[in-house]
Structures are given as structure tokens and as C-alpha cells.
């Protein structure tokens, strides 16, 4: 499965490569016309299907409720109204949910990176005797479906073994479980294992201990993989719904994803559309900036998901 990661790098689209059609094919007028027509259709279809809903959402957020509900496709019959955005931010207190979301993402990122980098380093570089067993146990979790432990994990979080603390209603209840992510650890482990051993041997001869090697060799060299893991973690955390719903019962602590279904029937429709738009425009903006990284991470995650 890990080979998928490496085959991805091979798969970087090179514009000069041919596909099913050859250069010769493309010179034929019928083929060229067909490619042109199909290409245009595909692009137009994709634009309507994929960008259309986003555009409609924007329109609904900036129209009045009555306008949208009575004529969903008329474009701003009474002009653009921005007040739904203002209302959502002031009256509905959307900022708080937003802040909760950011806090959840930040915490999951920090803990996730901590576990994945140190763990990956231990497994790939330090390799004590027990590393094999630990590695096997982590690999195993990839093949045990998460659903099996949903309830048990929940009961664990509300009464942590040994210390008997309940994390219910605290952000730790989301941060800690999300740090136990086998995909992240394995991605790190794989990357660290590819760092030439000679580097570490040389460092050891120079008297560097495991800590110095970690901070001066491993971390600086693994920026790309840290980027990928960070992106995966942040996206996953932004998207999470069921788990925060379960462990953050108090509305004040909830992230956007949990608050939105509740708001759906308690606030005005155009305000709700504005809330949805705010919730989607931030990841979309990030995506437009970091397109390549997103698509690459998608390939990685897709190939590793179990």
C-alpha cells in the first residue's frame, strides 16, 4: 500500500505525454472536433455540477428568504443583500462556532504531528526490539474498521482508564483520539525510513543522541511529508461530524459542523445559507491557493485509507 505514495510522484502529469490518443490522432480533423466537443461538454458539465452549487449558495445567502424559496433561480431580483452575513455573525454567534472549529483543528494538528513524528522516528530510525511489535499493532488498526470501537472509544473518553477523568465536553476529547492516526504514523515512518542511514551513522559518530538527530536531521528533512500529514489532519478535523457531536454535548463548545444541522431549523433560511457559505468558502479558498498539495494529499490518503 505504501508504494502508492511513491507511484504518485511518478504520476505527476507531464503535459507532453500522450494518452490514449496519439499526436497523429489529434491531427485528424474528426478526432480534433470530437475531442473539442467532448472536452467542452465535460468542462461545462463539471462547471455546472461542481461550481454551480457553490455559486447558488452564494446567491441564496445574498438574497432574501422569500426570493430563494419562491424562485430559486432568479438572480438577485431585489439586489444583493449582505445583511444575512452580518446577522449570522452577530445574532447567531457564528464566530464562536468558528473559533471552536479552529481550536479543534489546531489541537488535532499539534497532537497528531507530535505522535506521528516521534512515533515514525522511533519506528523507522531508532528501531528498538519492540518496534516490530508496535509497528504490527499500528498496522493492524488500519484493518480493524473504526466502527468497532466507536462506542468503546466513547466510553473510554468519558472515563479515561487509570486516571478516571471524563473528557466529555472538553476539546481534549476530540484532540486525543484524533492523534491515534495510523495513516499519519505510517506515512512518517515510510518517509523517515527513506532517509539515508549514513546520515544517522555519521551523526552518531559525531556524538549526536536521538534527540539531536531528531531535531537536526529528521525534522528539517521531512518538511514535505509534514506538510502532507498536516493538510490531511486539518482537512479531516474540519470535516469531522459524528465524533464532536458525541463528545461535545454543550452547544457552546461545538464546531461549525455540529452546530449547522442544529441551526438549520432555528434560524432564517437566508441566514442559514450565509452560514453554509461561510463554512465552505474558507476551505475552498485554501484549496485554490494550495491546489497541488491538496490533490497530492488526496492521492496519498486515497491509497492508504483502510
Amino acid at each position, binding site marked *: 500500500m505504501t508504494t502508492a505514495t511513491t507511484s504518485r510522484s511518478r504520476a505527476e502529469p507531464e503535459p507532453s505525454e500522450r494518452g490514449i490518443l496519439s499526436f497523429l490522432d489529434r491531427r485528424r480533423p474528426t478526432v480534433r472536433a470530437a475531442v473539442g466537443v467532448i472536452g467542452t461538454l465535460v468542462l461545462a458539465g463539471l462547471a455546472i455540477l461542481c461550481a454551480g452549487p457553490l455559486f447558488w449558495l452564494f446567491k441564496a445567502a445574498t438574497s432574501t428568504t422569500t426570493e430563494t424559496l419562491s424562485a430559486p433561480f432568479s438572480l438577485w431580483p431585489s439586489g444583493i443583500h449582505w445583511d444575512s452575513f452580518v446577522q449570522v455573525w452577530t445574532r447567531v454567534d457564528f464566530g464562536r462556532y468558528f473559533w471552536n472549529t479552529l481550536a479543534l483543528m489546531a489541537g488535532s494538528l499539534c497532537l497528531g504531528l507530535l505522535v506521528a513524528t*516521534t512515533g515514525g522516528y522511533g519506528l523507522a530510525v531508532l528501531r528498538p526490539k519492540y518496534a516490530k511489535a508496535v509497528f504490527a499493532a499500528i498496522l493492524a*488498526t488500519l484493518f480493524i474498521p473504526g466502527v468497532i470501537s466507536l462506542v468503546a472509544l466513547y466510553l473510554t473518553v468519558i472515563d479515561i482508564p487509570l486516571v478516571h477523568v471524563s473528557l466529555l465536553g472538553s476539546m481534549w476529547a476530540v484532540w486525543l483520539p484524533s492523534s491515534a492516526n495510523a495513516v499519519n504514523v505510517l506515512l512518517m515512518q515510510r518517509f523517515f525510513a527513506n532517509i539515508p542511514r549514513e546520515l544517522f551513522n555519521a551523526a552518531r559518530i559525531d556524538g549526536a543522541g536521538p534527540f539531536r538527530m531528531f531535531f537536526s536531521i529528521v525534522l528539517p528533512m521531512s518538511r514535505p511529508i509534514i506538510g502532507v500529514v498536516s493538510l490531511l489532519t486539518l482537512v479531516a478535523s474540519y470535516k469531522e461530524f459524528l465524533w464532536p457531536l458525541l463528545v461535545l454535548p454543550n452547544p457552546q463548545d461545538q464546531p461549525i459542523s455540529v452546530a449547522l444541522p442544529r441551526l438549520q431549523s432555528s434560524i432564517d433560511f437566508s441566514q442559514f445559507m450565509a452560514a453554509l457559505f461561510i463554512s465552505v468558502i474558507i476551505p475552498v479558498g485554501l*484549496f485554490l491557493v494550495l491546489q497541488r498539495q491538496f490533490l497530492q494529499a*488526496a*492521492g496519498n490518503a*486515497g491509497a492508504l485509507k483502510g
Partner: protein
Amino acid sequence: MTDAIITPKSGRSRRVARWVRGGGLSTLVFFIPLLVSFGLFSWWPVLRSLLLSLQRTNFLTSEWVGLDNFARVLQDPLLLTAVSNTVWFSVLAFVIGFPVPVLLAVFIAELRRARKIASALVYLPVIFPPVVAVLLWKAFFDPSPQGVFNSILGWFNLGPVAWLNNGDLAMPSIVLQATWASFGTATIIYLATLMSIQTELYDAAEADGAGVLRRFWHITLPQMRTVLLVMLLLQIIGTFQVFTEPYIMTNGGPENRTVTILMLIYRYAFISGDYGRATALSILLALVLSALSAVYLSATRRWSTS
């Protein structure tokens, strides 16, 4: 697991000293985040599931009940409904959702200048947080004649359709939404695979006089065989755990036509407080999924060696 690495007792103190001097302790420090995180939030919950499924607990008292929980799961008349709904979802998601990304990827691969923008468009729905996408589509499925989809049907003198309010259409509607939200990931992965097919294969086929369709059939598809199989299994595993979409859109209605297995687990555990029964059903589901995962594992093995 942790027993193996806990410091041995006094008699072996010399060995301990040697272990510490040899870097054993600092190595262990790097493993601590991973062991704590996985131990508490991954390995222990799995074990605990097995225990819980044999218990009946309300947190004041708990008693061992043998296989009673499993029996009660199997006796629930809703189980059959939930299983068949879930399988129906899976089948529909396959029929609607599986071919689309393959064809799209093939088309996009043949595009040249527009390839980049096409991949960005395809991936846009994936960027939507699932909850936002579900809620937006729920608004699209407005059953009144002025609903978004019903307005579109109205242009062609069709409808109005009750969508989620129609027992026969509710699940297909949910599948439409789920497909929209996820087809981007699959398309990007297929696209990567297509880009990695060696051009010599096409050249050779072309030299043998193979037309466009035959090239697709004899080269493109066989080259994608393994990734297709893997994606299929991933899709089945994913669809068997569908929850968010029906939970938000219909909460199982109308007439339980969209109750899924995971929703049943959720209801047992978090509405009825029947954790034993919920865990029992989780384990049954996990067994099925593990079997599928095993197939996935062997498929990826073949993939990596091929």
C-alpha cells in the same frame, strides 16, 4: 504491550543501567506519545468492545450477559431493514458512483490545456465539509414545486418530485448527494493512474493498428485493474459505514427506508443507552468489513508487486 518495556525489577538493575546508557530510555521517550495515544484511544477501545459486547451496563452496575446482546441485535426487526437499506445504498452508490469517475478521468486525461482546471473543478465538491454539502443538498431536495431540483424538472415539464419524502426515492436521493460529494477523490486517483501508464504501450498498440476504443479496452482498463479493485473495495467499506448523510437528511425516514446499520448502532448506544447491544452490532459489522479489508490487503499486495 507496555509490560515488555516497563523497567524490570531490582535483580536486573545492571541490565537496566546498561539499557539506559545504551539509549534505551531516550528511545522509549520517543515512543511514549505513540504508545499512550494508541494504547488509550485505539488498542484499548478495540479490546473493550469485545468485553462490552458481553455486558449489560448502565454505569451504575454492569453484568455479564454472555451472547445476549448479539441475540437481541439479531432479534431486532429493524436489523434486517437497516442491513438491506445499507446494502441498497452500497449498490446504488456503485451503480451511480463507480463508472462516473473512471470515464471522467479518461476524458480529463485526454484534455491538455484544460486538464488543470478540470481537475480543480472535479475536486471542488470534495472540499465541501460533508455536513455543509449534505445540508445544501437537503435544501436542493425541497419537495415543494419551487424547490431547486423541482424547478429544474419544471423547465422540462416534469415533477414535482417528493425526493427525500418519497420512500422509494429517499435512498437514491441520498446516494446522489453522496456521489456528488465523493466522486472527485476517485477521479483524481484514477487520473494519476492514467498519467502513469507508459506511453510505449499505446504506441505499440497503435502500431498494431488498434483504434481508440480498442486501446482503451486493451490497455487503459487492464492497467487500471488493480486500482479499480482497490477503489471498489474502499467504496464498499465506506458505504457500509454511511451515517452522516441519512442522519442529517432524513434521520432514517420515511418509514425507516433510510435507516442504516451505523444509524442503528448510534440509536442503540446514544439514544437508548444500550451500549452492549450497540457494541455487539458494531462487532458484527466490523467482521464483515474486516473480511473486505482482507481482500483489500491482498489486492494491494498484488498491486505493489505488479
